[in-house]
């Protein structure tokens, strides 16, 4: 019995140590601006996506607004509410939870600390029985992105550049959040090519579907082999496999959340980016200027919350005529002439 206890004790201690010891602490900033605490989603800094976006926004706020920002990276499965509570009780003016996973915790902690402002990135508001979203507590702002609008534009680019009547989509977990990407993408394809079809596939039905690159690669290979030339992925690190398939077949893929050009240079047509950095920076600025107000805030093309990447690296993949047409679609969406479905 004793050796067993010793072994388990050692393993648990090692595991806990690995969770808590971090090679580099995200630097605390000291300025005279608002005190801000940010609790990251699983993965933490260096995820090349969401958390890094939040971090960039906070860094900019520290530089430009003198914000005093601190970060917590909860380990896998550890208590997220605790991270929020630590910051709230330490007298932060604004506490940000990054990722839809914080939704319930944010509502609870925001009620407990009515004097602190809270923001939830990708917050998923609760809905009542008839489907209307319930308003969050008054000191909590729910920052949601209209991913379907950005997806619409990359769908149009894919159809205009692809040179095939078949377009591909690879989703991560088969859930409504990802269906928004698919719906927008489909609508974008249809807007510029009414007789094109979209082959949409999902990597699975569990959260594991967001980190299964081998599966993403096989899905993408079979799509490319069936005549698809461009695939848009919304599947976390499963999408890394989609880029591998694009390289192997010399085809094109479209990234998501952040600019993913670097994952497969020359094979990434563009990326549908969610400007988490803009959202974080803006909410910090509102706190500094005393203009913070709770509620649900939806960020789309109009607010600069979503966009597609068009820069020096991928400009040669997108001809000027395509660029012009897509920009016209953007104006149509911003002006409300084009309605983008979200499912």
């Amino acid at each position, binding site marked *: 019995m004793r*050796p*067993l206890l*010793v*072994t*388990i004790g050692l*393993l*648990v201690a*090692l*595991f806990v140590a*690995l*969770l808590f*010891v*971090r*090679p*580099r602490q995200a630097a605390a900033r000291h300025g005279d601006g608002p005190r801000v605490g940010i609790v990251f989603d699983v*993965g*933490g*800094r*260096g*995820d*090349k*996506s969401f*958390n890094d976006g939040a971090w960039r926004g906070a860094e900019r706020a520290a530089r430009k607004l003198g914000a005093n920002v601190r970060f917590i990276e909860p*380990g*896998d499965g550890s208590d997220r509410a605790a991270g929020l509570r630590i910051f709230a009780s330490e007298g932060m003016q604004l506490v940000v939870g990054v990722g839809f996973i914080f939704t319930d915790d944010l509502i609870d902690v925001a009620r407990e600390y009515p004097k602190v402002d809270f923001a939830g990135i990708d917050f998923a508001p609760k809905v009542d029985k008839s489907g209307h979203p319930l308003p969050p507590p008054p000191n909590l702002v729910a920052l949601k992105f209209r991913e379907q609008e950005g997806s619409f534009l990359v769908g149009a680019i894919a159809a205009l550049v692809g040179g095939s009547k078949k377009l591909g989509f690879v989703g991560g977990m*088969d859930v409504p959040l990802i269906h928004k990407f698919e719906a927008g993408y489909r609508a974008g394809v249809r807007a510029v090519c009414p007789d094109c079809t979209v*082959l*949409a*596939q*999902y990597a*699975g*039905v*569990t959260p*594991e579907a967001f*980190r*299964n*690159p*081998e*599966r993403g*690669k*096989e*899905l993408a*290979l*079979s799509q490319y*082999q*069936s005549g698809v030339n461009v695939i848009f992925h919304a599947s976390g*690190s499963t999408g*890394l*496999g989609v880029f*591998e*398939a694009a*390289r*192997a*077949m010399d085809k094109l893929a479209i990234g998501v959340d952040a600019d993913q050009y670097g994952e497969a240079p020359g094979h990434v047509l563009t990326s549908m980016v969610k400007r988490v950095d803009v959202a974080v920076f803006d909410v910090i600025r509102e706190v500094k200027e005393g203009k913070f107000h709770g509620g649900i805030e939806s960020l789309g093309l109009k607010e600069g919350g979503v966009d597609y990447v068009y820069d020096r690296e991928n400009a040669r993949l997108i001809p000027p005529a395509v660029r012009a047409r897509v920009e016209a679609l953007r104006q149509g969406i911003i002006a409300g002439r084009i309605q983008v479905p979200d499912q």
Partner: protein
Amino acid sequence: MSVVDLVAQVVRIATPYLLAAAGGVIAERSGVISLTLEGFMLGGAFTAALGTYFFHSLALGVLCGIAGGLLLAGIHAGASIRLRADQVVNGIAINLLAVGATRYFLRIAFDSASNSPRIAGFNESPGLVGLVENPLVWAGLLALPVAWLMLNRTAFGLRVRASGEHPEAARSVGVPVGRVQLWAVLWSGALAGLAGVYLALDQHQFSDQMTASRGYIALAAIIFGAWEPLRAGLACLLFAAAETLEIHLQGTSLVPPQVVEMIPYALTIIALAGVVRRVAPPAALGRAQE
């Protein structure tokens, strides 16, 4: 999309299952539960990416991957054989350790929480050529026949089976049960590590938790194959074929993807419940030895 492409896809999906199952079946037959294949595989994938990146050599990367699997297997063997820790509890701890440790060292080595930089790999053409030129695919196809030979045609195999079925009797005729189990677990670590190498080289990088339960599917194949290497191999191919089918049926909404994801586990339960034919695990599986 031709038949050749389909077969190639089945083999690609099956390769990590085959490699891990070939190691796991030996460990299980020696009496040690192979819940740890998942962790060994993840460790192997990470050290393979690390080795390939820093040594600029595929061969060294493959060796590093095997070493990564061996390292975790050594910890597992030390705890569950030498110290007689509960194999299931210890197995879960090893798998959690693999997730935490790879993430931790990923951060140290590459300052990323999600993936390593790009590394070299084998020929990645998605057709037959890519398969034929990938030595790990060959290793996967040969692994279970080799495991069968090892179990049934060698003295070591006889000792493995004796240790798993009746360790007291084995010991009474001078079989060093603990040492036999140690070698069996190390062997499973090396092969599961190799399965991880395959994943990392095929993706040209390591990404956080990239094994995505493939180790558990390999274990399911071992059980569904009634702890017989060749049958376990067929089970691996069956599970891979089901996945391939699901990929091609998706969108036609003939089969809900949930059902296909259930297949390996559902079949395992059916096999264990003895619906078709009673399958019996090695008699001393999971029992701590004196």
